[in-house]
């Protein structure tokens, strides 16, 4: 319909193009936009709203109070859950960086012909059911589990090591394990893009290995690093499976939320916990998103 634009002046031509393009946008981008507005934005907004209600006789009553939000910070169990979770999430993120960086660097720089194979080997745990994999850790770490029984059998210890499972340690281990590929993959894609010539040139000019890392490799890997940090931190904050399966009774936000929805029977309180968690997640995303390109990691 906008006819042939070849004779028109460039200004009206760009306007016509823009109209035509945005028309196309509704046909192509419209459906997913509708889906996400209706079942992503809508639910999240309603969560903030329901947090202001009260639960009476298993039904939501419109009380419109902020007491649930206040309860997130004043209730000792809730507060402790947030403190524990934040601490473990920070620790997990730092560990993931330390573990993943040399690993990703090695694959990116020295993987050679095996690079694709090594990457697929990283992807396999990444895309296999995480309940199943955490169950594997339960078998390894349990008091009668593989590790303890092997150590006892070999005569290294007499009693099972008690802190392997159902402790903050096991949550930290489980989360580091689970989210490690989320750190490796974006780091890899940044490191892999670094021009080998830059590194060679630096060496030729007499830079030490440390200097090359600090002045070239590290700065150029920032987008991947930030992408990994976003994923690992956010997913650790919102974790449920790990604390529920191998975290024993340790207070954790994820298990706390599930409890308030399930046995606790207090949806508004759970919604308030979820809302505060959501605000933390949004804050992290808002602060760090500018330094990375999440799209490039998949």
């Amino acid at each position, binding site marked *: 319909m906008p006819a042939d634009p070849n004779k028109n002046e460039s200004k009206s031509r760009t306007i016509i193009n823009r109209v035509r393009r945005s028309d196309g946008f509704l046909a192509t981008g419209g459906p997913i936009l509708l889906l996400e507005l209706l079942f*992503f934005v809508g639910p999240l907004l309603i969560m903030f709203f329901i947090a202001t209600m009260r639960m009476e006789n298993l039904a939501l009553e419109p009380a419109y109070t902020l007491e649930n939000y206040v309860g997130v910070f004043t209730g000792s169990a809730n507060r402790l859950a947030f403190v524990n979770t934040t601490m473990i999430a920070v620790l997990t993120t730092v560990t993931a960086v330390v573990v993943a960086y040399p690993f990703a660097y090695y694959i990116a720089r020295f993987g050679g012909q095996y690079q694709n194979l090594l990457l697929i080997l990283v992807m396999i745990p990444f895309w296999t059911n995480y309940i199943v994999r955490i169950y594997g850790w339960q078998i390894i770490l349990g008091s009668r589990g593989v590790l303890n029984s092997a150590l006892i059998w070999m005569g290294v210890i007499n009693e099972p090591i008690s802190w392997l499972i159902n402790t903050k340690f096991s949550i930290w281990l489980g989360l580091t394990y689970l989210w490690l590929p989320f750190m490796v993959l974006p780091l890899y894609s940044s490191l892999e893009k670094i021009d080998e010539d830059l590194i060679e040139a630096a060496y030729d000019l007499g830079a030490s290995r440390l200097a090359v890392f600090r002045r070239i490799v590290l700065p150029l890997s920032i987008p991947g690093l930030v992408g990994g940090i976003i994923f690992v931190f956010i997913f650790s904050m*919102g974790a449920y499976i790990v604390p529920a399966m191998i975290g024993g009774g340790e207070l954790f936000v994820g298990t706390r939320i599930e409890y308030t929805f399930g046995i606790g029977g207090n949806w508004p309180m759970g919604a308030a916990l*979820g809302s505060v968690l959501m605000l933390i997640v949004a804050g992290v995303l808002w602060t760090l998103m500018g330094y990375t390109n999440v799209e490039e990691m998949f």
Partner: protein
Amino acid sequence: MSTETTSDTSNVEGETGIRLDSVLTVAERYWLPVWTGLVFLFLYAPIAVLIVFSFEQGTFSSLPWDGFTTQWYAEMANDTRLIRATMNSLRVGVVVTIGATILGTLGAIALVRSDFRGQGLFRGLIIAPMTIPGLILGIALLLWFNILNINTSLQTVMIGQLVFVTPFVVITVSARLRGFDPQLEEAARDLGASKWQTYRRVTLPILMPGIISGALFAFTLSFDDFLIAFFTSGVQNTLPIYIWSKIQHGTDPVINAISTMVLLFSIALIVASELIRRR
């Protein structure tokens, strides 16, 4: 071995402590591959344990090994509730995959090809569902369906999974789309192809590997999803929920057998997807 040592140390000769230097050189040279190997060991430890102990005779997954058996696999095959849960997962997975592939491919075209105000917002909306923890999305959807008076069932699971699976398809397809020259489409249009013909004969074939790998990702994500299904499935089980409830009732070697099958299935899918994507 000895020649290598001398050639290494010759570089640093004249500096202090040749012996220490050569030790450091060896450490410096090999720590990266050793580290990489250890990380792979870490990544595969639980997977290996599950597979190994699915063939273990004793009911406790502990050492020493009691003997080889396939009885857990036989038990698994006779578990009707497991089979029903698996069928539910497959059904949900197929529907979600079809939906996510169509919506995601269209979304990718919008993301890469359109140029309009608010594009940043659109991009943000596409990426956000991938980064929000499943727990938050799960409870938010539960509340939403409750407000809308929709009973939770496998249908609500499908909708919920579509929300976070579709963005993955968008990302996979748009990566492919960025790599191809829009002039190919223009050329087709210049040669008289209609908009639809251009899509069908030019755009779609070039995008196909991205679409297929996106679809496989979508299926895997749906098949593995626990949290969305956990909160929005009502009384119906999907496979992860069934595994979860079985684990809650204590350790049972049948879980090892089920886990091994799930692992093998996922591995097959991811390998297929990677092969297609890297083509």
